[in-house]
């Protein structure tokens, strides 16, 4: 745990991506199996110990530390794992180091009942830095800026193997990735994926910004506002992966059942909406289906999922990824009719005559499920990640509204001392300010400092971590779309709200009315 704790500490304070990469490369090269595999899985949040939760740690702490002192400390530190690591008294067996795999084994076998005792016995063997590493490993929320992509790059660099190979193999092999390390170190052949429904890294797009493209070279498709998925059928299994390579099959059993062809597709998972005569519903509807481990019958009927298919990566045992888009598209058009049309349809190519025509259609698109336009180079193969010039996304311009800040809450982690999460509202016809959304991004560090000071200087009331502020500051909020919602008193919910501008110049009375926002609901 010492090496792992030291790695985490270095990663926390290291800002540059290359330096982070170098630290992980060094760790992977010089740490034995299975510790390094568990460590990298922990860094990329790929471990889950269902029996150990933040509540477990809080309960446990109460047996060693006064609850009030824990509460005060937690409030100051802003993170449960770090607070607990600092407060836990040094144990009698502190000298005996604990390996990462010992810790993982113990945590994995813990039941909800014996979890506190198990965590306590592990904490007793570690110093403060080790305790921090252990608790982050157990609870997740590592926040050291290591994405799965960075970890894979580090692996490729550590063992001098192609990163695309690593991406493919990564999700096919569970932690602690022993066969992967054996292959990396040249001790074994590349693991065979023939009979595995393995994940292929997604091809991603750059924003188009202000550029234009020639439609002779690029095909245009609508960018749908669902979640990007890959459906893989192989080795008698069907698996659905999200963009990050996380498996989400259990949330969409009807799609798993309906995908019965030997193929790999890339598409957008959407929920069918009633209002649009069977067309795609808003993201709001899809959200009802996300993150569920068990899906009720009612869920399946109320929010029926389907996939709008964008691309065909493999079919009948042939990998198509090296073929140009035009050829994959031709095969895709032949392939999609083999799937049940109740659950799969083909993403249409927009038959715009030229770029201006496309711009006009993009501007005129009123369907809420349309997020913008995708531009795909016709001669490009399907390659992992974002490559310059191959795919572009061209989002619709955001909507904006002038809202009034109502409440603020402190952020987490790096923002623990800043009031960085803002709830804002608009005026009802009765002249009452009703909350319409919450945003915690869009501002610069300088603006954050200013906003934080505004909150502190204009606090009216405190409700635990939340401060109610003087209703005097107008925030221009940008959002992708707005929907009816029963959750908020205003009856509205914004999608992707962010602070576009601080309107110190505008009096609060002149902020927008709820009625104005209602007119934007599509």
């Amino acid at each position, binding site marked *: 745990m010492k090496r792992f704790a030291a790695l985490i*500490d270095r990663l*926390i*304070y*290291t*800002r540059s991506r290359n330096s982070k990469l170098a630290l992980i490369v060094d760790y992977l090269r010089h740490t034995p199996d299975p510790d390094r595999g568990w460590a990298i899985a922990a860094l990329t949040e790929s471990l889950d110990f269902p029996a150990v939760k933040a509540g477990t740690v809080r309960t446990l702490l109460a047996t060693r*530390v*006064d609850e*009030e*002192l824990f509460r*005060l*400390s937690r409030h*100051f*530190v*802003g*993170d449960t794992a*770090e*607070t607990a690591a*600092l*407060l836990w008294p040094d144990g009698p067996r502190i000298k005996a180091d604990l390996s990462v795999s010992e810790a993982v084994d113990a945590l994995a076998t813990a039941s909800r009942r014996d979890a506190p005792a198990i965590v306590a016995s592990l904490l007793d063997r570690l110093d*403060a830095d080790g305790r*921090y590493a252990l608790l982050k490993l157990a609870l997740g929320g590592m926040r050291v800026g290591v994405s799965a992509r960075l970890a894979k790059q580090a692996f490729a660099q550590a063992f001098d193997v192609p990163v695309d190979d690593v991406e493919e193999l990564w999700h096919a092999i569970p932690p602690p990735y022993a066969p992967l390390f054996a292959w990396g170190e040249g001790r074994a052949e590349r693991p065979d994926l023939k009979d595995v429904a393995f994940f292929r890294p997604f091809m991603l797009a750059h924003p188009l910004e202000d550029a234009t493209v020639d439609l002779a070279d690029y095909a245009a498709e609508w960018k749908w506002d669902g979640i990007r998925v890959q459906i893989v059928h192989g080795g008698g299994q069907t698996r659905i992966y999200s963009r990050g390579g996380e498996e989400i099959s259990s949330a969409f059993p009807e799609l798993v059942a309906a995908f019965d062809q030997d193929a790999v597709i890339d598409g957008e998972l959407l929920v069918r909406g009633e209002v649009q005569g069977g067309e795609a519903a808003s993201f709001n509807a899809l959200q009802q289906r996300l993150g569920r481990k068990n899906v009720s019958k009612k869920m399946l009927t109320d929010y029926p999922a389907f996939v709008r298919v964008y691309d065909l990566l493999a079919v009948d045992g042939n990998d198509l990824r090296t073929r140009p888009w035009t050829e994959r598209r031709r095969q895709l058009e032949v392939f999609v009719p083999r799937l049940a049309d109740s659950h799969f349809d083909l993403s249409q190519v927009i038959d715009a005559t030229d770029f201006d025509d496309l711009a006009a259609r993009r501007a005129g698109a009123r369907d809420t499920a349309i997020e913008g336009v995708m531009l795909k180079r016709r001669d490009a193969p399907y390659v992992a990640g974002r490559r310059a010039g191959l795919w572009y996304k061209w989002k619709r311009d955001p909507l904006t509204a002038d809202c009034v800040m109502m409440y603020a809450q402190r952020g987490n*982690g*790096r923002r*623990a*001392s800043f009031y960085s999460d803002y709830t804002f509202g608009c005026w009802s016809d009765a002249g009452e300010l009703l909350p319409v959304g919450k945003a915690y991004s869009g501002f610069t560090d300088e603006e954050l400092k200013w906003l934080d000071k505004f909150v502190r200087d204009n606090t009216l009331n405190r409700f635990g971590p939340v401060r109610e502020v003087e209703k005097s500051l107008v925030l221009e909020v940008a959002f992708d779309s707005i929907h009816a919602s029963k959750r908020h008193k205003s009856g509205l919910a914004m999608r992707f709200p962010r602070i576009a501008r601080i309107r110190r110049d505008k009096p609060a009375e002149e902020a927008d009315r709820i009625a104005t926002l209602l007119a934007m609901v599509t």
Partner: protein
Amino acid sequence: MVKPKPWLEPHPHGLYVKPADLWIDPSRAVERAAVTHGHADHACSGHGSVFATPETLAIMALRYGVDAEASHNQAFGYGDGFERGGVRFSFHPAGHVLGSAQILMEYQGERIVITGDYKRRYDPTCAPFAVVPCDIFITEATFGLPVFRHPPTGGEIAKLIGAVRAEPERCVLVGAYALGKAQRVIAELRAAGWNAPIYIHGALEKMCALYAVHGVDLGELRLVGETDKADMAGQIVLAPPSALNDRWSRRLPDPVTAMASGWMRVRQRARQRMVELPLVISDHADWDELTTTISDVNPKESWITHGSEDGLLRWCELHQRKARALHLVGRDLEEEA
């Protein structure tokens, strides 16, 4: 609930000793002030007359241009003191920075100690804290939460030297408060065998010289402004915390940013400061020092002046010790802790 004393009034801007018509560490200019130490949140400028240790008066003279020798100011060594309005005042080492003192007041058979800021661990640049028995102990509580346990200083200094040696083409830039912390880090480096010249920001120069005059040997110091960039590779540079991410640091060879402060114990605090190498070195008592000191002094009552009062109050409650918080303002020089 503990009642305030009729002869000692806590005000938001300081403690007023009524029979002596004198303030202790007032945060605004007054006619007469007794000052525990030279940090700006305890020693402000413009007082009519100041009662303090000779070192503190010298520091105030350096910072505010006050004439240390002026007849209206009076210097007292540790153990010495004066009497005014029936109150006997005396100065005792606080172990915080050069010249820092606790002030003991005796009046009508009652003894009150005000610590100013203090720490209990070894510091090569100042006299160690003395336990002064008293009835009322007025303590600081900057690190009055049990998450604050400063590790041994030697380990942090070793970390600093290790970081310089690990990347000899870079330098390590240490943010350290100009009065106290900077000189202590330098003295600790010398004690650990770091004999190379140490490079300092211009804002540290005069205070380092003052320490040398008072017998604290800091070895060879050079000014960053008078040194070529390349000569500072593999070297240690000290600057006030405000200069860390300032344009000033561009004159250094690819600096690793370090910061010496008790706040560095909390990771997210260090990250907020954009620090790459946090060094947990503080001139304030940590949680164990605060609680041990209350036990050692064993007063009838503890008054807690500034910092995390709530944490220390809770500890007193759990240990059945009488305590109250005095809400003094302007006592949070975060940079200095």
